[in-house]
């Protein structure tokens, strides 16, 4: 039977709508399951003014046998089998005939009692109990109260429509009582009407200019986009986040198109699209990669017959572009180097000093990185980019559009005559801003990005700021993630611990956390992000553990170890080898008591194992030296046959102490060699599980 709930509200932020709907879905299905109400289907939909839940549910709980126990058998039943007073009283008080009584055995002993069929309760009744609690438990990033009601929600609730099988389910939430009534579009068709089921609800809403299915709105928008652009041979600059947001902001989507004077095309694409997106939430129109003097917007209206909506948006956009041009021209009047000097007065973090101080550190850090990465050609430009990279924080454009930070610096630097390397490095140095975001394309941009984030992570953790749960004021998680992304994607072969030593020494006198403790904390923090990346890439956690066990020094090598290990997992040698290493590790529990003495090797199998080890070790070390982890791992697998024969024929725990210790020393050399590649004992193989 059909269940339909609509919570009508004043305009909810689109992120709140999406989160509320998914919470509702989860909570309602939990509660219904707990109440033993069968669910055939359950889904949510809605708009910024309506949270809607639609379900097909069983009419009621199933009937259930219930056991009622009374007095203990000894008390209730006499020796001759007839009922005592206690039994008669129990039957009377429960209103059941004596014939229905029986002895019921429980964990506590035997009792007199009876069984009866308990009728399941109707679903409507259950819904009316559980819904008010679910509605008030929905959580939002920010809640509010309104009027004189002691109720918190994202925005005020206006109306509740709640039907089960065509009947109103009585509810009361925030002083409102449920009914079978709802209202059309708030501005275009504010008509109240009654509905009996979802089909009617959907249709009447549509008649009253509300498209309640989000997928239908999305299709309508995409179709209208195409219609508008058909003649232009142009396309919408894709902006999924904006589209997703607007999709929930309108009940009756209408795509409008407008234009702006071509003279504004002299502004950089970055500025144009930001000016359109922020504030008015317009989409750019492009042909190839070139911006055209048009925009698309999504209005909440059935039509724009007199063109007011498009014309109004054009006027507002023109004003914003005029402002942007004013900022662009004004900003260019001041040299970036001059602005950079003023950063001495802008605080980066209270204990870490100003942005000026940060830039001094960055210049040294990029110089260090350039040496380590042998970037002789870029070194000078890198130091220059580091000196200038935060100067755009003082420009009017970035003050107006903070998300253009970095990009503006790069654009201004280029315009003011700095080299391509310098301006590009500045432009890209905030990248990547998330797991999906690209890393800087240029090497210099990547180095600067890495240095900036390292300085922030080390500095902020180093002055004792702790991050937990949702509290991460400097976005350190994202920054540490970016450190890993840049290092891995750019294949920067660096020793992370030594890099941290350098970053820490540059911050030295400002830090409050002891050096070694800080280094350990940062390494663990970065390792956590690295594991997150590997997990997202689909690597098995046990392989990640194995590959990271040799220590977090060179991230690129760690990744190569993991990759090689993962690729070999399918080979027939893999599992026997893993089991063999586990066996070795079980035997070698402590460091060897004696050095290996080849003269003491007596048996054929142990001599063969030793000579195999020498050859394999030489090969592995050569392969590691050229970072060929795949080959090294394959090579090390060759230990398995001689090891196998060794274990078959040779008793490690020999009577003779010298022989025993010598064999243990041989095994621990093998273990040491494997540990350079991975801690294979961490790998879970099938024959062990179950």
């Amino acid at each position, binding site marked *: 039977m059909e269940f339909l709930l609509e919570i009508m509200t*004043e*305009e909810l*932020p*689109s992120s709140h709508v999406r989160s509320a709907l998914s919470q509702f879905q989860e909570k309602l299905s939990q509660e219904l399951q707990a109440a033993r109400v069968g669910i055939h289907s359950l889904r949510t939909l809605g708009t910024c003014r309506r949270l809607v839940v639609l379900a097909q549910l069983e009419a009621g709980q199933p009937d259930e046998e219930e056991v009622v126990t009374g007095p203990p058998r000894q008390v209730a039943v006499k020796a001759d089998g007839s009922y005592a007073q206690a039994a008669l009283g129990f039957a009377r008080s429960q209103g059941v005939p004596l014939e229905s009584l029986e002895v019921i055995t429980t964990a506590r002993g035997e009792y007199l009692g009876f069984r009866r069929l308990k009728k399941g309760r109707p679903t409507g009744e259950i819904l009316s109990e559980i819904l008010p609690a679910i509605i008030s438990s929905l959580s939002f990033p*920010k809640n*509010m*109260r*309104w*009027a*004189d009601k*002691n109720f918190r929600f994202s*925005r*005020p609730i*206006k109306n509740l429509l709640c039907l089960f099988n065509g009947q109103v389910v009585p509810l009361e939430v925030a002083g409102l009582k449920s009914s079978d009534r709802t209202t059309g579009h*708030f*501005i*275009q068709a*504010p008509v109240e009407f009654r509905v009996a089921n979802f089909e009617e609800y959907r249709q009447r809403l549509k008649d009253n200019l509300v498209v309640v299915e989000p997928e239908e709105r999305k299709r309508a928008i995409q179709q209208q986009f195409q219609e508008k652009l058909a003649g232009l041979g142009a396309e919408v600059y894709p902006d999924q986040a904006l589209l997703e947001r607007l999709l929930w*902001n*309108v009940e009756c989507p*209408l795509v*409008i198109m407008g234009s702006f004077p071509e003279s504004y095309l002299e502004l950089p694409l970055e500025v144009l699209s930001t000016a359109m997106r922020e*504030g*008015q939430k*317009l989409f750019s129109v492009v042909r190839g990669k070139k911006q055209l003097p048009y925009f698309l*917007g999504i*209005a*909440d*209206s059935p039509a*724009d*017959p*007199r063109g*007011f*909506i498009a*014309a*109004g*948006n054009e*006027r*507002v*956009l*023109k*004003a914003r572009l*005029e*402002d942007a041009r*004013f900022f662009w021209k004004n900003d260019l009047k001041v040299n970036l180097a001059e602005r950079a000097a003023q950063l001495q*007065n*802008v*605080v980066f973090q*209270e204990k870490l000093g100003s942005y000026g101080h940060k830039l001094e550190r960055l210049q040294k850090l990029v110089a260090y990185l350039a040496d380590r990465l042998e970037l002789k050609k870029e070194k000078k430009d890198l130091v220059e980019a580091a000196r200038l990279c935060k100067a755009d924080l003082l420009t009017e454009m970035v003050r107006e559009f903070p998300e253009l930070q970095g990009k503006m610096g790069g654009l201004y630097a280029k315009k003011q005559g700095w080299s391509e390397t310098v301006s590009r490095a500045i432009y890209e140095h905030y990248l990547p801003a998330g797991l999906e975001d690209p890393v800087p394309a240029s090497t210099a941009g990547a180095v600067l990005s890495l240095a900036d984030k390292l300085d922030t992570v080390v500095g902020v953790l180093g002055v004792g700021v702790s991050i937990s749960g949702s509290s991460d004021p400097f976005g350190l998680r994202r920054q540490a993630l970016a450190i890993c992304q840049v290092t891995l994607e750019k294949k920067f072969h660096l020793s992370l611990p030594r890099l941290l030593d350098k970053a820490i020494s540059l911050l030295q006198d400002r830090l409050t956390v002891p050096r070694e403790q800080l280094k350990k904390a940062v390494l663990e923090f970065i390792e956590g992000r690295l594991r997150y990346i590997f997990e997202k890439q689909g690597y098995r956690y046990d392989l990640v553990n194995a590959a990271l066990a040799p220590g977090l020094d060179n991230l690129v090598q760690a990744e190569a170890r993991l990759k090689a290990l993962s690729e070999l997992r399918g080979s027939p040698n893999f599992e026997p080898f893993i089991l063999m290493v586990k066996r070795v590790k079980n035997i070698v529990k402590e460091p060897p008591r004696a050095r290996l003495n080849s003269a003491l090797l007596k048996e054929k199998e142990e001599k063969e194992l030793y000579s195999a080890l020498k050859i394999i070790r030489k090969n592995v070390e050569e392969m590691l030296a050229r970072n060929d982890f795949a080959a090294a791992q394959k090579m090390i697998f060759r230990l398995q046959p001689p090891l196998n024969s060794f274990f078959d024929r040779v008793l490690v725990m020999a009577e003779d102490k010298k022989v025993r210790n010598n064999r243990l020393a041989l095994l621990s050399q093998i273990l040491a060699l494997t540990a350079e590649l991975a801690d294979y004992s961490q790998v879970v193989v099938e024959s062990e599980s179950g």
Partner: protein
Amino acid sequence: MSMQQLFLKLYEFWAGQGCYLAPTYDLEVGAGTMTPDTFFRVLGRRPWKVAYVQPSRRPTDGRYGENPHRVQKHFQFQVIIKPSPADIQRIYLDSLTSLGINLKEHDLRFDEDDWESPTIGAWGVGWQVMLDGLEITQFTYFQQAGGLELFPVSVEITYGLERLEMFLEQKDNIYDLQWSDEVSYHDLRYQEEKEFSIYNFEQADTQMLHRAFSASEKEAQRLINQGLLFPAYDQCLKCSHLFNLLDSRGAISVTERVKLIGQIRTLVNQIARQFVEREGGS
């Protein structure tokens, strides 16, 4: 419709909703929200309905009369109703209709925009109202002021009058607006904008402003100690405006900014607390 007709229509509309019409407050403020007719009325339990026009000064928005949209002083029409009526969004739409706007021909949107003023320890939840892409109103359910949780909740509706008038007159330049049939916005405001921009950005004596700030701050504390809350609040408003002037002269560092705002907030919070105690509990 001229700018002054717009004032009159809105006065008439909101008086019809039972609001008392407050005269414009006679101190420099950054927003209509700052005046006593909002600040004190949203505190405590007593219901209020008030509407007024308030010039709002934002020294950093000055553009020497050269920018067609930005001015360092603009006019707000402010409405406060406590408790917020259930159909307040509808009433607000009616106010736009009363200005002759046929909403069915336009795109009116309530776009998420929460409001916060750290200076007076206040925040609220609501929207910017967009009309064909133009922000014409800030619509807020006040949740906190003077650091105090507010209950019952007031609704605040702040119309940006120049924006609305530009919409009504279909003008692209603020100075082309008609104040009355005879007088333009340019006639009244252009020279003033030019001179104040020079003052705000170049001429204001920062040492004098710093001295005045500490003097008003001390005076406010002294008055609070004596329970003279309205005069004390005036001194806070002076501090706030002096702060804005210092800011537009670029004379405040980031740390100092936090410190000065914190000083004003501490005073305002004391005033709010005492006021509510005096009125008999929140």
